[in-house]
């Protein structure tokens, strides 16, 4: 599978990606060399010790930061040439983010938080737009089992519920790819497993998922693991003993 050559299957293709920070005259080579190909529908974990450049790598892949070297093709196009307008569209339509700190707007309700990306959906046209949006919000909330919490203020939710809201928000625009940086990092193991179950479900539905984690057990829920050490992408392996969070108790 890793060696497949079907061009249009390839979503991400990066070669020798580099990121060097210059702060206060000090150079930090956060990412020295990362090359990989990720196809549509893959569930990839990025692993490595703290400071190895996992987050940096993901920020480059998700256009949050620009690389200082190397090349990056996204969906067949040169990603380094994307302008602000294209990036706004990509972020809104093709990418979903899940952050370690959830990043919900605490004063808004669950519903309004999930709606947030749709507010910036200037691309779905026509009369059915708001109807379509309603449907998507309902579907997203259902996918994470939070329909009954729709009118709750985000600040009153538990950590696990918050992260599920964040997942609902990430998938409400039906993105091609979901980026998650330590999505279980602030959760206990049970809530973490719930999140993994949802991510695996999304993966099964055909979403591409790239997840940063430093826990081996979490990483093994993915189908493939990229290992970083000191900013270098060292190993790229298929997960043989993949874990499935399916036998977890039903979500409440």
């Amino acid at each position: 599978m890793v060696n497949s050559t079907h061009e249009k299957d390839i979503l991400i293709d990066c070669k020798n990606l580099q990121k060097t920070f210059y702060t206060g005259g000090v150079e930090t080579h956060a990412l020295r060399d990362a090359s990989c190909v990720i196809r549509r529908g893959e569930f990839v974990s990025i692993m490595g010790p703290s400071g190895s450049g996992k987050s940096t790598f993901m920020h480059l892949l998700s256009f949050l930061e620009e690389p200082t070297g190397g090349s990056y093709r996204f969906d067949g196009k040169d990603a380094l040439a994307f302008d602000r307008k294209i990036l706004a569209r990509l972020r809104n339509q093709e990418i979903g983010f899940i952050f370690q700190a959830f990043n919900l707007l605490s004063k808004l309700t669950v519903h309004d938080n999930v709606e947030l990306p749709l507010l910036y959906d200037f691309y779905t046209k026509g009369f059915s737009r708001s109807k379509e949006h309603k449907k998507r919000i309902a579907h997203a909330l259902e996918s994470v089992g939070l329909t009954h919490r729709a009118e709750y203020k985000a600040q009153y939710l538990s950590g696990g519920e918050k992260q599920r809201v964040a997942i609902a928000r990430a998938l409400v625009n039906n993105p091609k790819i979901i980026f998650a940086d330590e999505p279980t990092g602030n959760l206990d193991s049970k809530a973490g497993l719930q999140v993994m179950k949802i991510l695996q479900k999304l993966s099964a539905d055909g979403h591409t998922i790239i997840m940063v984690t430093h826990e081996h057990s979490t990483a093994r829920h993915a189908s493939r693991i990229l290992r970083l050490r000191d900013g270098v992408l060292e190993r790229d392996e298929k997960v043989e003993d993949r874990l499935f969070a399916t036998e977890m108790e039903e979500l409440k």
Partner: protein
Amino acid sequence: MYILLLALKMTWQNFAAAKLRTFLTVLGIIIGIASVVVVMSVGNSAQNVLLDQVRLIGSNLIAILPGASADNGPPAIAFGVVSTTLTSDDIDQIRDKNNFPHVLYAAGYTSTTKLVRYRKENASYEIQGISPDGINVENMNLATGRFFTEAENTALRRVAVIGSRAAGELFGNETPEGKMIRIGKANYRVIGTLKERGSSFAGDFDETVYVPLHTAQSTIMGINYLSFARIRVDDEKNIEKTKEDIRVLLKSRHKIPQSEEGDFSVRDLASAINILSSITNVMKYFLVTVASIALVVGGIGIMNMMLITLKKRVREIGLRIALGARGRDIALQFLVESVTISVMGGALGSLIGWGVAELVGIVANSRGVAWRVTQDAEIFVMAFGIAGVIGIVFGLYPAYKAMRVSPMEALRYE
């Protein structure tokens, strides 16, 4: 349109979260706009009062003021110079139809304030010595009785014609004609009363007691010169020529070479009004400038608040950008917010300014000034316009900074 609604909604949410800070920020705008409205409104009212005066007195009037002064500058008396050079003989010459064909009436004036008494009633009134022609120069109308004659003037007869309010105050329901009143140390016979006339910047006509010019000069004041003279010409278009003829005449009578400046100034009411108007205009724009400073300070306050808002919400903004908000969506949100604050301040300021202008009108009216409060719609349009422009101008920089926020900000400050 949809983006605008979105921005408005967010603006509302943000205000609700920081009511006091928002209010303090708009205080500068409120004060500034209120000042602009007050200044413009009061200024316009004042100018209208002046125009009312012109209509009341007529525009075919010439005034001669004693003492050298520029014809459109303040009179010599304003600098404390009492000039004794203008006499009633000068005015008699001007009344000569052969030399001044356009002059209808000419009157000399002298005035003072004296205690006037009728039986137990007494009060201080303006006493004006005036030529018999004065009734026509001033367009005064008699309510009862008659005005004094040239013969009474020459004979220094002690007769008086009194203004309507003075008559009411002194006589109540009694008939004033034929009654004797005491002005200073002498008794005067009332021969007529005037119809109500209103007041002007020159004084309250209805509280004035008129006596023959010569009587006033010799009996009350003990002088032989005039405070000023007024001349009514047949038509406004002959004012300039008549003014010039008066200058020539007076210079030769006062033995001043024609090439030199006279010891008097000749003015017409229209230009006097213009001078007053231009003075109030200068005042108005000076005060508007002062108010603008308050507005700029208010604008800087808004800018400051928006920059603080940006700092506090940078994570949220980063998140919104990460979720697909475009630079212009964020910038618009900031602009809508700053304009909303500013226009709200403008609305409140307009309201306060409007109230103050009405109050000025009430106070002026209670002081007997025929003040009409003018609340021109343009003033409020202008006030809102200014507020909006300030919101935009001082919102631009924060808006620009907000649209450049990196989506990475969503991940920082954890």
